């Protein structure tokens, strides 16, 4: 039976602030799942802590609302145990790039075939607007007592340096574009990362919807233009086509340079995509030949209520 967009929505009351950028992201995820036709019970949404952490409750698939900074650990465990699941992890920028930054980097090294989406708004919303890892040095959002004393993390750059094999940025108010990015990310064979710019209407009074829309920018012809532009419209070519050092280095470095653009021009779209790096499931298959057909979650471990594992050869070797 074909599933409709509505099938991916739960009836859980959504208590995000009016105008929150998170709504666009949830809608885009639900649209992407519907468009891909992924069975609801074959997908699992994992989420961290904070406003974004509630996402898993709004989507009608398996939903695992985990702990602050730890979402990737749960999600990778589930995907490795059951590689047939479609796994999407979501969390805020404080969650993933502050407390969870170690897991972020380590996940890149593993390249487990799943998607990680960061709701990037520069503040810790649910604790009343403290500075988060993506807020720039010296910036003062409205509930900060004084300007931010830390420099910001570059999420795209960090993902590229860590080994994520699909790295893209979306904007929460461009839902269709975002939906397409999510589809590409989920379909990518490996660990995909989406940095989603998401205005917090309550606590981030700097990077607002109007600011992204460029209402404060006026060009020489007195014409307004959005700060956000799409990489694919600039014929930016993010895909690694063949496995050579020159090719890979070129694609990595152009992505890194692009990731530094900020201010009056902010790129969204795919920065980097490399399908030639083996996903973690493949690495396990290389050691355990039938891993994909008989992964941990599918293994039968008993016979008539008793162990069916034959460890007699090991015991023989220990026998004296």
């Amino acid at each position: 039976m074909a599933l409709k967009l509505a099938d991916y929505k739960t009836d859980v009351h959504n208590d995000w602030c009016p105008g929150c950028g998170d709504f666009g992201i949830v809608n885009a995820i639900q649209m992407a799942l519907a468009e891909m036709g992924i069975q609801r019970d074959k997908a699992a949404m994992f989420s961290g802590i904070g406003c974004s952490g509630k996402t898993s409750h709004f989507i009608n698939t398996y939903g695992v609302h985990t702990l602050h900074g730890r979402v990737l650990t749960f999600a990778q465990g589930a995907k490795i145990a059951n590689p047939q699941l479609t796994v999407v992890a979501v969390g805020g920028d404080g969650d993933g790039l502050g407390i969870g930054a170690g897991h972020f980097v380590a996940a890149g090294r593993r390249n487990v075939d799943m998607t990680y989406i960061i709701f990037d708004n520069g503040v810790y919303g649910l604790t009343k607007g403290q500075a988060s890892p993506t807020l720039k040095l010296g910036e003062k959002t409205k509930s900060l007592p004084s300007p931010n004393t830390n420099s910001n993390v570059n999420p795209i750059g960090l993902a590229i340096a860590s080994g994520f094999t699909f790295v893209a940025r979306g904007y929460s108010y461009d839902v269709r574009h975002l939906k397409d990015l999510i589809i590409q990310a989920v379909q990518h064979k490996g660990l995909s990362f989406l940095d989603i710019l998401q205005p917090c209407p309550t606590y981030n009074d700097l990077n607002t919807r109007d600011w992204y829309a460029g209402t404060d920018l006026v060009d020489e012809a007195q014409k307004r233009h959005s700060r956000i532009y799409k990489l694919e419209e600039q014929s930016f070519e993010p895909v690694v086509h063949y496995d050579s050092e020159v090719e890979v280095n070129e694609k990595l470095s152009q992505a890194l340079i692009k990731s530094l653009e900020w201010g009056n021009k902010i790129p969204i779209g795919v920065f980097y995509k490399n399908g030639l790096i083996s996903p973690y499931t493949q690495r396990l298959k290389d050691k355990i030949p039938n891993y994909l057909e008989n992964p941990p979650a599918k293994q039968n471990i008993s016979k008539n209520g008793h162990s069916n594992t034959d460890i007699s050869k090991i015991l023989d070797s220990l026998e004296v």
Partner: protein
Amino acid sequence: MSFVDFTWLIGGPQGSGVESAANIFSKVCAEMGYQIFGKREFYSNIKGEHSYFTVRVADKKIHSNVNDVTLMTSFDAETLFRHYEEVMSGGGIIYDSDLEETKTDAVHTLDAPFKERLHKKLELKNKPFTIAGILEVAKENGVKLFPVSFRSILETLSEETENPRLKGLVRMFNVIGVSLSLGLVKMPPDTLQQTIESIFSKKPEIAKINQQTANYSYNFATAKFESFNYALPRTEKELGTILVQGFQGTALGKMASGCRFQPYYPITPASDESVYLETNEILEIIDDRPGSTAVIQTEDEICAMGMTIGSALTGTRSATCTSGPGFALMTEMLGWAGMNEVPVVITNYQRSGPSTGLPTRHGQDDLLFSVYAGHGDFPKIVYASGEIEESFYDTGNCFNYADIFQVPVIHMMDKFHASSVITCKRFDPQKISINRGKLLEKVDDDYRRFEFTDDGVSPRSRLGMDNGIFWNTGDESDESGHISEDPVLRVKMMDKRMSRLDLILKNIPNTEQAVSFGIEEYSIISWGSTIGPVLDAIDLLKKEGISIGLIQLKLLNPFPSDYVNSLLKDVKTIIDIEANHSGQLGKLFKQNIGRDIDYFILKYSGRAMTSTEVYDSLKKIVQNKANKREVLMHGA
């Protein structure tokens, strides 16, 4: 037939093959039909610091080490300096005669506090601070000395075999040491040769050179050494005996119990278990295609625990293995697992704390921490294995408990277990039953993961199951798993989860909760690996007509108060024996049963108890000469 109880000690710098030598010795003795209890001690160091192995060999079942060393073999000076006093009167020391003039100051790894104590002792006896000095003391103590130049053995052997390389091959000293020892106690040489062959079966060249060295050294001992009071004649081998290292008990238990996922972060003394699981990652399954354990090395213990939970949510039996510092990092997630009723097993090979503590030394330091781990109230099981043989079967129980009661289970092991080598009856995987509790095979409509049920346990779906969609959250939740802050629902949910504690006590058989080895006027409570030395000590006292009772606590949370109370209610004196500073089991006992402990026998030097020192303390207690708190100190 005379009773054999023989302890061999070999020491040397870390990296010099002390462990290999001990493996050879243990294997040869086990092949000859002896029971083995071996224990390795080592520094937190890769190369150079002092490590040693004591192997106790007996012709009856033994559960511990003893203080007295019958024969010590050393190829370095430090071993002699550190252990000469342990060798009993009538025992022997095989040592490298080239070392006789070595001064304590020449051994840079002798730390200052030890050297100070040693110098004081030697000063009192008017001996020089040299190997010759301590050997004189040993001789005066009635110890027989067997000097031999290890270097000249290599030189002669090098000439005889026309292998000039051998002359400088000091890494053969360990094989020389073990072969001299086996020659001295008249072990059959063919078993030594076979053992070396089997240990180096993948490296025939190395096997050959080791065999030549062993053969020469063995013959040297039989021909040149004076006679020794002790011999180890061949004895009857009990069929179905295995020689295992401590960590193999839980590792093999995990394979047999159907644990198919184990992420871990390296930490002493726990990592050996995970590495062993990965080494044997592909599993033979009866009447089915091969199975496997996915063993994943993570970036930290937090990730290890997160992955364990994520995997458990797919219905996979999942575990991690760690030690105190790593377990400390896992505790936030432990609460999440408790909140979401996720069956996971955490094998905790404890070591000496607090903080990094003594990273490679023993301690039962984490009992109270494990019982109280995690913020907030949630049900969990803390379960402790006594002996290594037990740990195999207990691992099976731990997975069943986790599945049946849908709680995290902390399986308490320790460093004493992990680095012991023992003989025991071959493990029988058929004795491991598999009970997945309310894990569903198919789901009907209107499924709610946290549905209220009569027994407080809800049917469990798994990620990816048809129609089995559920939500999890660390927040309080409703039956579907969605966040709820409703006060009435909150109370119902808390009561549901916590009711599991009573259910656990009601359903786990008494014999799995606590083991009674007899109740007497004086009775001991103890737990974990300390049970071994306690059992041997009680046995020694029994021979003198002194009967002491013993209750081994296995289920430590929830605490089996009623059962333990029923066992101990008429006991006059309760003695708590464990390897930590504060008597943690005693505290737990007092808290749950409301009765004070009369005596504590504690050890927190980082070295496991010997049965000798437990025996000594118990005897003092019975003679009314003991302090309320007896603190044990044996062991270098």
